[in-house]
């Protein structure tokens, strides 16, 4: 019994701390966007955006994959059901894919996923497919900015409806 009580205390303390932090950051709430970036182009593009100090909102969570062709519909749906507000799949330009046809494969996967999302009653606008090369740091930043804005608008729309 004693152990339980102490546990409860600790969790209460944690809760209050978390609430305080939440209150502080309430004004700066950004949507959570999972970004699958391919190792050869998009990840390097994101790197360039950072090195060149292009400003973009901190809403992206980058996941590096060797090729955008590795992404399956399940990855995207898992991300969306586990709490992400949006997903970006980004690969090399079609001609420059390191694995020849990976980007095209990714495009197809995104299309099927969008159809599935439509069937399942989810908003297809939460998913985005982008082609970003290693030299396009600026493009990465603009995509991040645009998509964050779009997702926040979608969220507002949804809450407004409710």
């Amino acid at each position, binding site marked *: 019994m004693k152990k339980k009580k102490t546990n409860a205390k600790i969790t209460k303390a944690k809760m209050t701390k978390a609430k305080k932090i939440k209150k502080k950051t309430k004004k700066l709430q950004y949507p959570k966007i999972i970004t699958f970036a391919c190792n050869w182009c998009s990840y390097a593009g994101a790197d360039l955006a950072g090195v060149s100090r292009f400003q973009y909102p901190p809403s992206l969570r980058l996941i590096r994959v060797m090729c955008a062709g590795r992404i399956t519909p*399940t990855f995207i749906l898992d991300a969306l059901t586990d709490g992400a507000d949006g997903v970006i799949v980004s690969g090399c330009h079609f001609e420059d894919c390191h694995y020849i046809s990976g980007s095209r494969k990714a495009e197809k996967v995104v299309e099927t996923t969008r159809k599935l999302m439509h*069937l399942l009653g989810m908003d297809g606008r939460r998913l985005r497919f982008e082609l970003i090369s290693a030299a396009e740091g600026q493009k990465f930043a603009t995509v991040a900015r645009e998509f964050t804005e779009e997702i926040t608008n979608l969220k507002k729309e949804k809450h407004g409806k409710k």
Partner: protein
Amino acid sequence: MAKNSIDEIIKKTNSYLCIDCGECTGSCPVSRVNVNYSPRLNVEKMVLGYFDEIKKDENIWSCLVCGLCSKRCPSDVKYDEFIKLSRKEIRKHNEKLNYSHNRIIQKSMEIMTQGNTQKRTEWIGKELKVSKKGKFLYFTGCLPYFEVIFEYLNIHPLETAGNAVKILNKLGIEPVVNNSEVCCGRDLLFNGDEENFLKLAKINTKMLKESGAEKVVFTCPECLETLKEIYPEYLGKTDVEFIHITQLVEEAVKKGKLELDSSSIKKFTYQDPCILGRGLGLYDEPRNIIKSIPETELLPIERERENSICCGPSAWVSCTNYTKRIQHVRLGQAEKTGAEVLITACPKCYIHFSCALSGDDEDYKIKLMDITTLIAETMKSKKKHTDSHRLEG
């Protein structure tokens, strides 16, 4: 692993009655191609208390749940039930499953359990008559999802659904196609995920109650068996009648309500879906329908009726080289009959066989067709006939 649950599995499945005769392993289609898999050994291990060995063995996931062993077992050991319960137990410890299609089908089902409003009735065109409330309900199952997921095979599973509604319209029935129906959950149950299965089952029974349907028509035998026989085990009995579309059509043909015209294809052979045949005992209905088409021949395939072989993988797990081998054996048998078209009555058989046909491994002349497509096509020509009569009149 609690000892109680082992005892429960042994009791529920009659495993203690096993006389070690090996009939199951001898007839198992998987054991023929995969030497490491043996139903007899699995039952023996369970009875002797070596459950840990079954747990580590990946082959427990390669069972097709085709029911051939349970049908032939002289001691009445229910191996399907055995697989279902032991997979449920194994899943508690180990979730590393060899999912096929990147788990997308299971994932879609999991999303369906959350109760989002789906858009699964968009395939219904203007030419199809559907009512909002009525006594008849058509259960689409996973067909709209298959249409998207199996696009790369160049097949259209939704044609089956469209044709089913066409046939029902021809019979003077305007079925309800409900948007709030979800997948039956059978695949989740046989993946050992009972929790999500129950959620889906509850949504579906609620949907049936609210729609006020008295008769539910299916094109998928697996959905039919699940709603008819597995749901009552968990949620209690209902008064609703569940039938397969072949039952309905056969009755109509017998009574003369529906006449089938001759088709351009003359030689058919028929694949018994495991669940429709061994599970529900509907062997003659589809055969009678094919026979009632004039000028056609139904050629007997090697190993038919109770002895038919499964189309390959089941419950969307462990699609391996072994399953491909089984499919090629079956397609080879179908080719041998000299038929032009292999008819199946299950959308899953259709998908699995068209996957095997699309590969470069072997060349086949035989083509695939779903039985609803066959009925709708032979029926269609009849309709044109009447139309021309009307014009003349």
